[in-house]
């Protein structure tokens, strides 16, 4: 990423910025209205919901959102009305996502495929009673508002959650609800909290309600095409909450034949418990040795007939992949990334939180502020680094980022600004150049101190399985 590109990304844009700001203000009005619940709305939240309805009035959602707001203000909190509101909010955030991505593609000169398919309905849809159970709990949350969430309301989610977790076709919903419930549980009683993560919780609530619609979501896998070729990993983005871990690998795919290289993602995930964390999470993904090996040893992978979704998600099949020649992710980013065609984003997934575009930054200087915040300075432009996104399962540290001269990362956008999430850095230590990547420990930690600490703590999975075996046999 060049200085001029960074300047283009961060400079004010009078054609787009006011629209983004206005949309986010409307979303903020909804988020604040949720604080005390929709059951007894004051003057201000009523106006906020009416404004949201007004903003989407000319869209296909307009009529339903208008009616939804009307009914909710009148005290009728039916599923369909709450769903209409969640849909209106999602549409606004989708528009913000689109504006941001268009701008990013513009400054990077990144070409992107356009969305052309509408998937058929999911044949393996989660049971309707399970989805209805989720909607009913989400409705209770909307009635109570965040301030009204107590232990009983969180505990009431347990049965519903068990049912969702048991249905493989509702994995997305299960992972989302489990993450939300854990946060609410830890914050109980929410009434005593000084400040509330209103944007975040309203995001999670709306997304969950949309995922819990009867009939489920269009299944993406039905629209997959088989691809073969050489996969060149750029880096691993790590997602984690108490009961889930996901590694999303960003890579350039060189398809067999002479088709243009494509930017793809491939994800592997596992369920876990919160005491399995740090480098131990990689062991939960040991069923994918070829993928983990490619990350740890930095080599390419030859893939055969893997399903590729229109969203650019490659469905990993470890037995259809084999290790190829060494491939330096920095070289891939320098030489192959600029010409790779990026995938379209599925309409229902458009939300600024999903923006995660791989970029390479070089020849910058770094500054570290008093609170440990790191900023990259490039030709008079600055880009803050999101150090809070450095995971404990990798050797990437704030120190290595602060000393770095090249960074391969994901551009993220949140709360009005772009930030860089590092996936790999080249840095100087004792006058030598070193590298640290988020996937370095995919086959186990390589730092002797970490290896020792891990050995001392013991294998958490093995201990829990032993306990489970003894206690569940009764």
């Amino acid at each position, binding site marked *: 990423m060049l200085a001029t590109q960074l300047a283009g990304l961060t400079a004010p844009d009078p054609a787009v910025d006011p629209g983004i700001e206005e949309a986010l203000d409307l979303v903020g009005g909804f988020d604040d209205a949720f604080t005390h619940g929709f059951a007894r709305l004051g003057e201000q939240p009523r106006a906020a919901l009416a404004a949201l309805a007004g903003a989407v009035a000319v869209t296909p959602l307009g009529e339903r959102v208008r009616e939804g707001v009307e009914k909710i203000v009148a005290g009728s909190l039916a599923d369909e009305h709450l769903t209409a509101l969640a849909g209106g909010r999602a549409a606004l955030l989708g528009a913000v996502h689109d504006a941001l991505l268009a701008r990013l593609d513009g400054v990077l000169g990144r070409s992107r495929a356009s969305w052309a398919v509408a998937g058929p309905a999911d044949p393996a849809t989660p049971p309707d009673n399970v989805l209805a159970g989720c909607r009913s709990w989400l409705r209770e949350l909307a009635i109570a508002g965040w301030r009204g969430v107590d232990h009983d309301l969180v505990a009431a989610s347990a049965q519903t959650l068990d049912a969702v977790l048991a249905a493989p076709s509702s994995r997305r919903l299960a992972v989302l609800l489990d993450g939300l419930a854990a946060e609410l549980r830890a914050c109980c009683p929410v009434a005593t909290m000084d400040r509330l993560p209103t944007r975040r919780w309203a995001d999670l609530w709306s997304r969950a309600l949309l995922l819990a619609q009867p009939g489920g979501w269009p299944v993406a896998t039905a629209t997959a095409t088989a691809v073969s070729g050489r996969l060149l990993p750029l880096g691993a983005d790590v*997602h984690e909450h108490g009961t889930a871990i*996901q590694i999303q690998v960003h890579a350039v795919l060189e398809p067999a034949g002479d088709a243009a290289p494509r930017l793809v993602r491939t994800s592997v995930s596992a*369920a876990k418990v919160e005491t399995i964390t740090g480098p131990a999470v990689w062991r939960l993904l040991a069923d*994918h040795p070829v993928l983990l090996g490619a990350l740890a040893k930095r080599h390419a992978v030859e893939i055969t007939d893997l399903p590729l979704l229109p969203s650019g998600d490659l469905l990993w099949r470890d037995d259809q992949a084999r290790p190829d020649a060494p491939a330096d992710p920095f070289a891939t980013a320098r030489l192959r990334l600029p010409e790779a065609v990026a995938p379209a984003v599925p309409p229902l997934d458009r939300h600024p939180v999903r923006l995660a575009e791989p970029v390479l930054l070089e020849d910058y200087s770094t500054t570290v502020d008093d609170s440990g915040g790191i900023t990259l300075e490039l030709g008079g432009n600055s880009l803050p680094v999101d150090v809070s996104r450095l995971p*404990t399962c990798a050797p990437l540290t704030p120190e290595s980022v602060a000393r770095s001269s090249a960074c391969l990362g994901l551009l993220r956008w949140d709360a009005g600004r772009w930030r860089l999430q590092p996936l790999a850095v080249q840095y100087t230590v004792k006058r030598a150049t070193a590298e640290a990547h988020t996937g370095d420990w995919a086959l186990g930690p390589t730092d002797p101190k970490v290896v020792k600490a891990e050995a001392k703590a013991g294998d958490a999975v093995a*201990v829990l399985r032993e306990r489970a075996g003894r206690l569940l046999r009764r």
Partner: protein
Amino acid sequence: MGTIEVGWERRSAARVLPAVQPRKLAKVPFVELADGRLQGVVSSGSDIERVYVSSVVAGSHAFNCSTNNNRPCGGLRGAPCKHLHALVDEAILQYGVERVARYLRIDVSDGASSGSDLLVRLNGSHEPTPAAVVFSRFLRHLAYLEVPGSTEPLPELHWFPATGAVD
């Protein structure tokens, strides 16, 4: 939970829970802050087939310890037993003293760092609570390890970045 940055309320990926620290699980395989209690399961030191279920209630600080078959713990004579000590020690390792104290509503403004520090500040007494509730939470916890992995993308996890290298 440390200082909260400006604009936190408007961040989709705002961090709400601090990263949990890994710890040895053999002695206390399960600890959680849930249902208004610090509760968990402590392995018996002498019998590999036996576990104790220990808990402290937030606010009232009522405490209890019994076997998973609801037999009262012999070590509980008006004061917290060694299992409750182990439970609180491990909770502090896992969550940090600040988070445990805040949840139980124990005042630690005069400085407390160990499990014993927290336990002497309890102002509740022994009150029997059914072990079955906690034990079933533990079994539910273990059940996660049986959920099969997946290679289908979970886009919702973009709201849950892995954190922890920085406090």
